[in-house]
């Protein structure tokens, strides 16, 4: 596989998650579909099952979802809810919903309620993975218990008990994927990027759509046969905030002359920041990883998260940060004043795009804000 072919494979997987899922289902996979970055796919792999991360799509909105779900729910969750009710995710043998965000917990409860209201809806079996993320020993112990309960459910689906050896192998495999992503990130974070922000977002996203072995093969192929530098000289931008479940904002930055060198959200660079410890008790290692070392709205203390944010901004040598928050954000906005102050201390400019709609985004206004910001950075660079 050449680098170009590998990149095409990853782009295709990102662009058509549902097509990719159906392809594998048709090939005989038992598909464990999940949301967000907080479901331990190591357990799914160790059980001999096939993990695939699903996401919302601003282009996929169902009126049936709006009948039951409040407008104030995140657009991504409303999109997912509608997709489930209309059967778009009916290929899943199990839908795993993590409790790492309140709105996803609500999604789980809304789905549990639906058989009474929509008895004909083909809702796949759902499973709540009750991950707690307070930085406490007690929470870690609770998470070990929930991991074991999840493993038992997967064992029923997989027809075999999950062994500790299989779990260790799975941890090593998924760590290999994370290492490959860490290595390939140089292609968008480096001095003269070879991948633009849109491709970076797609590559990161596709790594959790494809089976880990296929994702590793594709990324290693790109590393072995990388594209040439893009030769773009615009300001280096970090996009931060709400998860980007489609590339339209990234594309607007690129079109405005910015070079997107980092994505700091739960669908971006932090997803592969940390590895799971390969020594010691694998259950405790997994629990610690998902409790403390993945990005997410409930992970704290905030000072640790902010330190990672500033470290990424420095590593990627960003000139400016675009804070992009969902229309109904009730969480990230609490971080913003401190994060803005941290950037100011580093001499890094920022712009705040707050309360951005998920469905039917105001592309013209968004583009104007982004163009003005990128232009202001360009002037500073020239001066």
């Amino acid at each position, binding site marked *: 596989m050449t680098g170009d072919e590998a990149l095409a494979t990853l782009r295709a997987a990102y662009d058509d998650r549902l097509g990719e899922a159906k392809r594998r289902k048709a090939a005989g996979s038992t598909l464990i579909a999940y949301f967000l970055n907080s479901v331990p796919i190591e357990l799914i792999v160790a059980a001999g099952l096939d993990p695939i991360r699903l996401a919302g799509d601003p282009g996929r909105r169902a009126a049936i979802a709006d009948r*039951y779900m409040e407008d104030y729910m995140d657009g991504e969750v409303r999109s997912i809810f509608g997709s489930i009710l209309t059967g778009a995710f009916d290929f899943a043998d199990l839908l795993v919903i993590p409790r790492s965000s*309140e709105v996803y917990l609500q999604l789980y409860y809304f789905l549990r309620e639906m058989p009474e209201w929509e008895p004909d809806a083909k809702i796949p079996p759902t499973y709540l993975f009750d991950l*707690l993320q307070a930085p406490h020993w007690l929470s870690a112990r609770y998470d070990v218990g929930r991991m074991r309960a999840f493993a038992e459910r997967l064992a029923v689906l997989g027809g075999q008990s999950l062994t500790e050896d299989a779990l260790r192998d799975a941890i090593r495999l998924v760590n290999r994927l994370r290492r490959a992503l860490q290595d390939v990130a140089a292609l968008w974070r480096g001095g003269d990027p070879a991948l633009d922000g849109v491709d970076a977002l797609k590559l990161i996203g596709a790594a959790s759509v494809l089976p880990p072995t296929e994702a590793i093969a594709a990324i290693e192929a790109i590393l072995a046969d990388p594209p040439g530098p893009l030769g773009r000289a615009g300001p280096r931008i970090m996009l931060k905030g709400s998860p980007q479940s489609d590339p339209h904002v990234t594309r607007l930055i690129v079109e405005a002359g910015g070079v997107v060198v980092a994505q700091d959200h739960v669908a971006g660079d932090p997803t592969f920041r940390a590895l799971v410890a390969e020594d010691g008790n694998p259950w405790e290692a997994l629990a610690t990883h998902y409790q403390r070392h993945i990005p997410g709205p409930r992970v704290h203390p*905030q000072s640790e998260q902010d330190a990672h944010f500033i470290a990424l901004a420095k590593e990627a040598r960003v000139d400016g940060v675009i804070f992009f928050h969902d229309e109904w*954000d009730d969480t990230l906005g609490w971080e913003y004043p401190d994060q803005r102050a941290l950037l100011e201390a580093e001499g890094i400019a920022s712009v705040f795009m707050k309360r951005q709609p998920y469905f039917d985004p105001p592309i013209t206004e968004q583009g104007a804000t982004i163009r003005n910001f990128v232009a202001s950075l360009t002037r500073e660079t020239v001066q």
Partner: protein
Amino acid sequence: MNAVNRVPDSERMAATVAAQAYQKAGQQQFREDVIVGGAPYVIADAVTPHEIFHTLDIPVISLPWYSAIISAKQLSPYYFGLMDQLGYHDGLPRYGSLPFMTTLDNDPERAPYGGLPKPLMILERLRGDFGQKIGEQWARAFGGVPLVALDSSAQTALGKNWSGRNQHGWEELYEPHRLDFQVEQLKSVIALAEGLSHRTLDPVEFRAVMHRVNQAGEQVERAKRIIARTRPAPVSLPEQLTNIMAATWNRGTQWAVDHLTAYCDELEARAAKGIGACPNERIRLLWGNNGLWFNTGFYRAFEEKYGATFVWSMYSNFFSDGYRKYFGEDEDPLRALAARHISMNEQLHLPGWMAEWIIEQARDYQVDAAVMLVPIGDRMSSFGTRICQLALEKAGIPTLALTASMVDARLWDNDAMIRKVEQFIEDRVLP
């Protein structure tokens, strides 16, 4: 414009006057002991184990209580303006953030009761995603106090009839693995509170506190039976709130038990004499979801014209249905306390449980229609309202949704809201 209807003292129930006097005395005591005397106190979220601190004789300032006070004193516009100035965007949660803003403002002349001094700890339960974010900044603004963030495990199955299983069948209802975890968290809170305050939690007193909460809840159940069966209702909703909430925030005290007993005695006497809050009562309304704290007079705005009176809100008898947890003398009261707060959010704000309970209350109180507050700026409290509204309508109870902030008076157009409810009454409720 905002209307705040004050009922003259002469027309209030004796219990209401007593509850207000008790709270006023408590505030004075707080001022003397804590603000002047430097005694320890705790800032705590509503769904946290205040009972531990009541047993330790450490005052608790409840977040929603202080938010409601700020709001009732019409101070919310000022603090929300401050929030904007500091860079917190205007879509962020309003209900829990008002008390935090009084600390950032650091103006004791403006803040209710002279503002909150440095607490022993801030106690949060991580229901939503942002509690720890506010808590961390607030703890820092106080110059560094412990933030105790109780992690919030999730109920995996919502069975039917929670209110019927909740008082005696809580072990099974709330899932043993969750209760195990919550008990361990509570032990940590006790150890920290004892260490910081140099006091010891007396197990005998703690058990007594837990029994008294159940006893107080029994009186709230008694109040429900009186109000539900008596037409016209012998008490207005604002007075219900004053009496029940004063006891809720002081639960576990003998005062709460005695006060609610006296409140029920007075309700019975009023019922016997035919004294009604709305003598021309013709329509009974239910207020769904959180209270409208800056304008409780709104609940009475439809009495004169339509004989329409609100007889229930979730505070009317959540104390009886949600708080009571019975346990035997050979059982651990800490596990019963763990069960108390572990799923309150699900009971009040989740589609299935919320709708089921509210419909049950609507039938018990013989209500004709419901008005459902859909809070803006506090979206967690809005979740489930749409399905709840559908469920109420399916049960034959006409329902109007009012979208408004619970605490931000700036976003409330009183005349427009009154017109909406009047239109609803005329179109869907009047015979």
